[in-house]
């Protein structure tokens, strides 16, 4: 048997043995220790956790008679079991990846040894790591953080959609069970849920389209207005109009909520000053929707404006000069030069903004809180978007499984748009061509 397959086989047998065979002592010992930890974990912990993940617990809490007294005995907590099971599963996967790396390493080093190269000392290995695998080295910390703080919670939330984890089935008093697609079919078949769902979905789409289009057009127009050669104090106008973007949006939304107050808000008192009747800004379903769109324009226009400035300053002057020479009016120039240029560079962004608006939680939650209440809806109001409904269902009504179903719907909608737009951006298609 050749020495290089020997090292690899040793490493398959136990982590680190191959490295020791290759005379990389410190590295071998480190791998060996990791391998022992892994085996300990595998035997004593992993099985229980995975079992818990599959059954979600089998002993509910209850009262047990101990002698003459009845005592509350804590049973299995399905949700904790689920999370711990997932953590264990992910840890096992990471471990497996590490195990494969160990075999690969033993194999490569012994192959080099066979060619007469001395194996690296521990210090040299570290240097090599920095030089050759820099990308992995710096991506590792964010990767681990993301796995446990984003990916794991997401898997958890998706799994919840397939359980009956909803008020009144709440651990630790009850055990949660897997129910496959029950929640999805309830969402479609039970009238109370399906009316709310279609209603909220419709408004979400209408909102996302209006919010995106109004801020986009508004922003481009304002930028063009300021960009006119004859306009003076450009810097002043720009700074003044960026202010809404600069104010923390939590603050400005809470302020707006008070400004549009029907009774005491300044907006209505000015309308009354001019002899007009006040408008029920936040209490009438239609006007509440208008208010949300208006406030969103106030906050969103500056961002498009900034981007449009960037594009406008890159349009070559001579294009306009040539147009002037041909006797084109300003409307013509706008239609045939400015607009196509701006559209071309900002179109992918438009779709991203649309996707972002579907998830625009803050504007709705802070401004109207989804109100006014709609009596036909299940836990939702007239201005609720899918996300705010999701929030209310999960954190206020403890309807976790239904919230997860909605989350999956939102994901499907947003993913469709984002992937479609992303695959069309330059950075995806030809990223090596920029240099």
């Amino acid at each position, binding site marked *: 048997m050749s020495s290089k397959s020997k090292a690899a086989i040793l490493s398959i047998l136990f982590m680190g043995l191959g490295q020791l065979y290759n005379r990389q002592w410190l590295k071998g010992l480190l791998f060996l220790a990791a391998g022992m930890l892994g085996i300990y974990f595998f035997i004593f912990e992993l099985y229980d956790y995975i079992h818990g993940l599959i059954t979600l617990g089998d002993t509910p809490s209850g009262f047990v008679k101990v002698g003459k007294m009845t005592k509350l005995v804590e049973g299995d907590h399905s949700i*904790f079991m689920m*999370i711990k099971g997932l953590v264990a599963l992910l840890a096992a996967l990471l471990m497996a990846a590490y195990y494969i790396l160990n075999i690969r390493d033993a194999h490569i080093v012994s192959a080099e040894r066979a060619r007469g190269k001395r194996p690296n000392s521990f210090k040299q290995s570290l240097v090599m790591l920095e030089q050759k*695998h820099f*990308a*992995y080295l*710096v*991506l590792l910390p*964010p990767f681990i*953080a*993301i796995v446990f*703080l*984003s*990916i*794991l*919670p*997401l898997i958890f*939330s998706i799994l919840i959609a397939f359980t009956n984890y909803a008020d009144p089935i709440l651990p630790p008093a009850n055990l949660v069970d897997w129910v496959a697609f029950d929640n999805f079919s309830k969402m479609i078949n039970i009238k109370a849920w399906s009316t709310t769902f279609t209603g909220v979905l419709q408004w979400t789409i209408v909102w996302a389209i209006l919010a995106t289009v109004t801020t986009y057009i508004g922003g481009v127009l304002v930028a063009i*207005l300021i960009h*006119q050669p004859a*306009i003076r104090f450009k810097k002043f*106008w720009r700074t003044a*109009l*960026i*202010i*809404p973007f*600069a*104010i*923390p*949006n*939590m*603050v400005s939304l*809470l*302020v*707006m909520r*008070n*400004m549009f*107050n029907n*009774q*005491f808000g300044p907006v209505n008192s000015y309308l009354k000053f001019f002899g007009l009747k006040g408008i029920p800004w936040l209490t009438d379903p239609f006007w509440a929707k208008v208010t949300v769109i208006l406030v969103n324009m*106030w906050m969103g226009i*500056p961002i498009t404006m900034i*981007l449009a*400035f*960037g*594009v406008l300053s890159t349009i070559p002057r001579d294009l306009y000069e040539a147009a002037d020479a041909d006797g084109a009016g300003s409307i013509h120039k706008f239609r045939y030069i400015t607009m196509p240029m701006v559209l071309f560079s900002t179109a992918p962004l438009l779709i991203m903004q649309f996707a972002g608006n579907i*998830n625009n*939680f803050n504007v709705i939650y802070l401004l109207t809180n989804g109100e006014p209440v709609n009596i036909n809806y299940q836990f939702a109001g007239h201005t609720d978007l899918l*996300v705010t409904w*999701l929030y209310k269902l*999960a*954190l206020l009504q403890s309807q*976790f499984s239904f919230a997860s179903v909605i*989350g999956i719907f*939102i*994901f499907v909608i947003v993913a469709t748009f*984002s*992937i479609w737009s992303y695959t069309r*951006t*330059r*950075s995806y298609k030809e990223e090596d061509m920029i240099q």
Partner: protein
Amino acid sequence: MKTSSSKWKLRASYFILSVLTVISIFPALWIILSSLKTGNSLYSDTFIPREFTFQHYVDLFEKTKYPIWFLNTLKVALFSTLIGTFLLLFASYAISRFRFVGRKTTLKMFLVLQMFPGFMAMIAIFVLLNAMSLLNSHWALILVYSTGAIITNVFVAKGFFDTIPKSLEDAARIDGASHLKVFFSIIIPLSRPMLTYASLMIFNGAFVDFIFADLILRTEEQRTLAVGLYKMVSQRNSTEFTMFASGAVLVAVPVTLLFLFLQRFLIEGLTAGATKG
């Protein structure tokens, strides 16, 4: 004839711009003036209050935990910014420059993660933190904010790094500089607009987030400004409007000034990252 029509156009432009400026500044002015007026109600029959007072600012510091909230917020935001920016720049630099196995997968993973509504993860993070008994701790927030910052900003940052010529680093590497050295002595100085943009975005995000903070922070002493302020006016029968106004002014003024002051970098960062996708 031509000149008179363009004069009109110019006048109209100035008029529209003035109106827009008034609209964009009005809420800020209104809240500042409200914070200075006497009484505690939202209603005021004149735009400029008849009597001015700084009492609400004094009350804010004496009657509420505002100073503690302020320090909490500063702590959370500063640490999130430091850790988040550091991780973000490293990660997006690696993705932009190195062609490693799993690179496209990593990019796709970031894209997919961006699309899930954040709240879906919240319940799980809550349970996780509960299991690790990290609830009610600022470090939990810092950890979540700085990780989230990578996911939301990685594409803009990568787009920016894509535009820095590779030859600069190659030259340094020929001279024997390690990757870390190249990163710190060449890339970091060159990415000042990106650095400013990213850290400002992360800082701002951590500064104003209230929904996650509200979930994690259980006691009044641990609260951040956003949560404290939100609680002040979110209740239906809240009566301390003017105190909220003064609190809002104190939060918004520094952040707004910072934004305006760093405007140029922001615009550079935003456009550099955006047009490249």
